[in-house]
């Protein structure tokens, strides 16, 4: 069975939820410590949410220098699915594996609430099991989720269909209502919403499962 590696930095706090959500879909997942460099046992990587290295300097700024990130960058280049959720998205932009950056929310509030998330593209390692235009009820939980990039980058994201998820009602000021983007090769995806927190009826929504199932199917 293929296995998803879920990266744990000091300060990560969503890794076990992510493992649990993947297991709930019949998938196999294991935790990878940030000092590991061997990805030979996994077929996909999720960088889970939290506050890697305390989010000091900028979220993801120190995490991108953790030993595992060199291996993650190599794996991403070779086509392995790599997904960054929330803090994981911030790590992937800091590492240069995804375009743009995540800024402090408009209004300077930490936002923890369910959002309607629209699937804009099903052509990515995360969104392949969803349908275009589908609206998903998935929570966000962040202070720095305000996606920003220059106009040229935004235009190229649009031209290449790299905006995979948007907010129906923009909560944080993200340019283009962006909630998630993928890279050129479509195997690296970052999103601020937490699909693992919408993976069971007891959590209030199961809408995150269609994304996680998409990841399992992309392997």
């Amino acid at each position, binding site marked *: 069975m293929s296995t998803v590696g879920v990266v744990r930095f000091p300060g990560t706090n969503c890794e076990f939820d992510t493992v649990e959500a993947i297991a709930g879909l019949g998938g196999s997942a294991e935790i990878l410590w940030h000092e590991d460099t061997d990805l030979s046992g996994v077929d996909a990587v999720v960088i889970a949410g939290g506050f890697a290295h305390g989010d000091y300097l*900028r979220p993801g700024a120190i995490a991108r220098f953790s030993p595992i990130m060199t291996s993650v960058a190599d794996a991403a280049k070779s086509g392995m699915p790599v997904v960054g959720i929330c803090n994981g998205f911030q790590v992937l*932009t*800091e590492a240069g594996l995804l375009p743009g*950056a995540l*800024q*402090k929310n408009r209004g300077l509030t930490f936002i923890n609430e369910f959002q309607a998330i629209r699937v804009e593209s099903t052509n990515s390692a995360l969104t392949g099991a969803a349908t275009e235009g589908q609206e998903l009820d998935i929570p966000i939980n962040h202070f720095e989720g305000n996606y*920003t990039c220059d106009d040229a980058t935004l235009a190229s994201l649009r031209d290449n269909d790299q905006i995979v998820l948007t907010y129906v009602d923009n909560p944080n000021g993200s340019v283009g209502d962006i909630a998630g983007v993928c890279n050129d090769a479509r195997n690296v995806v970052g999103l601020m919403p937490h699909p693992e927190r919408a993976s069971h009826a007891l959590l209030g929504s199961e809408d995150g499962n269609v994304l996680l199932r998409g990841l399992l199917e992309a392997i």
Partner: protein
Amino acid sequence: MKYRAVIDVQLHPGIADPQGSTIERALPTLGFDSLSNVRAGKSIHLDIEADDEATARERLEQACETFLTNPVIEAASITLTEAS
């Protein structure tokens, strides 16, 4: 030589600054009028050993490019003084 460096990190012009705008909106409510264009960045202070000021500056520019700033949204200006 030892230098004291003050690195001023600011968002690029044109990148929205939620912190600056919040401060700007708050100022008039406290009676501070006629203040505008507020931008809030961060300041990093450190000491650096180098043969000369140019070398110190070059190394700090590299540090800013790779770590101390996110060049996608931020730029740094570096001020160096000889440390006693």
